[in-house]
């Protein structure tokens, strides 16, 4: 299997000629857990959207395993990157398992008929997240933590080398946050996934992240937590957040 490489090269991202982050250069090799942090409005989501290929970079380049996410064919992207959004999915009459099954969508035919392999992968994903006992419950009947785990099971079933999560811990209580973070660490180690997430839970995530990308004043400072703690603006942000 090819080793992951995520490269941001002299990248400028933003909306309509207004750069939010400029001259960003950073690189991740191999499966790592990357925390994208910074104040609200610092450009975390903009950078996330650009990496998801939902936003065209203004200049510079993003290379995910050698390919730019924008423009990239929808099918190719679905095999490379899976995504978990901040806002929990809350619709009735759809079960935990049905949502996990949608993770197989890039691999099924037009009528989404699941092959034995597809079913096996979905079952393994549900088991891995320890939600197989609630798989037939409706998504609006389970807890916030279980709902978020369902979305991660879905992403796991999509079977991609990259997992990008937008504030996955935002709507969770403390025990659910720690559990979710433990799951993400295991995903990056056991499944060799590169996990990139945005979060404000610095105290929980900084100690376990392999790499930090700190968005501040239109630039991104990249490094290990030890590196960043030497940076005065990061220290200021860190002290204010805690």
């Amino acid at each position, binding site marked *: 299997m090819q080793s992951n490489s995520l490269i941001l090269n002299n990248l400028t991202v933003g909306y309509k000629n207004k750069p939010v982050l400029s001259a960003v250069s950073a690189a991740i090799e191999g499966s790592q857990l990357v925390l994208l942090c910074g104040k609200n409005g610092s450009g975390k989501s903009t950078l996330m959207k650009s990496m*998801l290929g939902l936003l065209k970079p203004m200049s510079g380049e993003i290379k995910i395993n050698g390919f730019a996410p924008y423009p990239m064919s*929808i099918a190719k992207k679905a095999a490379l990157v899976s995504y978990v959004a901040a806002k929990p999915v809350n*619709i*009735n*009459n759809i079960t935990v398992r*049905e949502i996990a099954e*949608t993770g197989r969508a890039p691999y099924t035919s*037009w009528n989404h*008929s699941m092959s034995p392999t597809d079913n096996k992968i979905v079952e393994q994903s549900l088991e891995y997240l320890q939600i197989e006992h609630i798989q037939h419950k409706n998504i609006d009947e389970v807890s916030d933590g279980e709902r978020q785990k369902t979305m991660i099971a879905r992403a796991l079933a999509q079977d991609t080398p990259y997992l990008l999560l937008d504030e996955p811990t935002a709507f969770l209580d403390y025990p659910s946050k720690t559990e979710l973070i433990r799951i993400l660490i295991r995903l990056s180690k056991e499944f060799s996934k590169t996990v990139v997430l945005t979060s404000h839970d610095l105290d929980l995530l900084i100690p376990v992240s392999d790499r930090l990308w700190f968005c501040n004043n239109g630039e991104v400072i990249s490094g290990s937590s030890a590196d960043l703690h030497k940076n005065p603006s990061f220290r200021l942000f860190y002290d204010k957040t805690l």
Partner: protein
Amino acid sequence: MHISLRHSILFIILALLLLLLLVLDFITGSTPLGLSDLFSYWFNSDALNDETIILIRDFRITRVVTAVLAGAALALSGLLMQTIFRNPLAGPYVLGISSGAGFGVALAVMGTSALGINAFGTGGGWPVLISAAMGSAAVMLVIIAASLKMRDNVTVLILGMLLGAVVSALISIIEYAANSLSLKAYVIWGMGSLSALSYQNMILLATVVIPGMLLSFFAGKPLNLFLLGEDYAGMSGVNTKSLRLIVFILTCVLAGAVTAFCGPLGFVGIAVPHIARWIFRTQNHFVLIPAVLICGAVFMLVADILSQRMAATGVLPLNAITAITGVPVIIYIIIKNQKSYF
């Protein structure tokens, strides 16, 4: 997502109900007709006189088939809109799509007479149909543009109603300029009716809406993914832009064609998808699409039977019946869905 035994049983029950209502609607009308007349029409037409044959073919069969087509098409367009807008209150009528189609019809029927051109009349085939579809497309474009900017469902809904009001104002200006003959034709069209179609127009309606219905099955998988949200769908291999475009064309054709021929039949498109979800307890479009088609046909047949039978003489306006039966469903949805979608 397989079809479960429970769903199969429900489909069989609904199909039987549909069959029963087809027969009931056929024998309902100002001239009494029995089932035996229908059998004679198909198997032994020599036994019937010419008038009865015309009555059966051009009036009853046309009306019953139109009810099935109109109900199914409106319900499907409602389902597609609710999924794409992720808004349980979306539907062709409440979002002003039907008003847009009405504007198209008003232009075709009365606008031509205002300019001194010979009127098409409301039974006027292709010109009225195309005009209605373009009217609904114009309103739909504004709603889509707005829904991309405004994430709040209720705001989009209010915008739809405001657009509907503007379109109604424009229609009343055309009405003011129109001659009395075309004005009367338009007002009667506005009451909604399944009986105004000729046999040929019914065939035309079928040719337009049936391919749309069949096509929608192929959108089942992306529609299922769209329920999770546009970002999830986009990251799971769905081309969200082309899905929006397909749904846009389908809803304009389905709702536009029905409105052109049968008048604005309110609340069918919004209420029926909820009834179908409530019966089948699923969000899977491979189940929901056939379910709304059947439920829509059933709903419209019931409405037609009521409109034919409730008045001592004559026929009640059909859109009065669809509003009286459809609105309670919508009120129930608003009360129930305080926190979650659908």
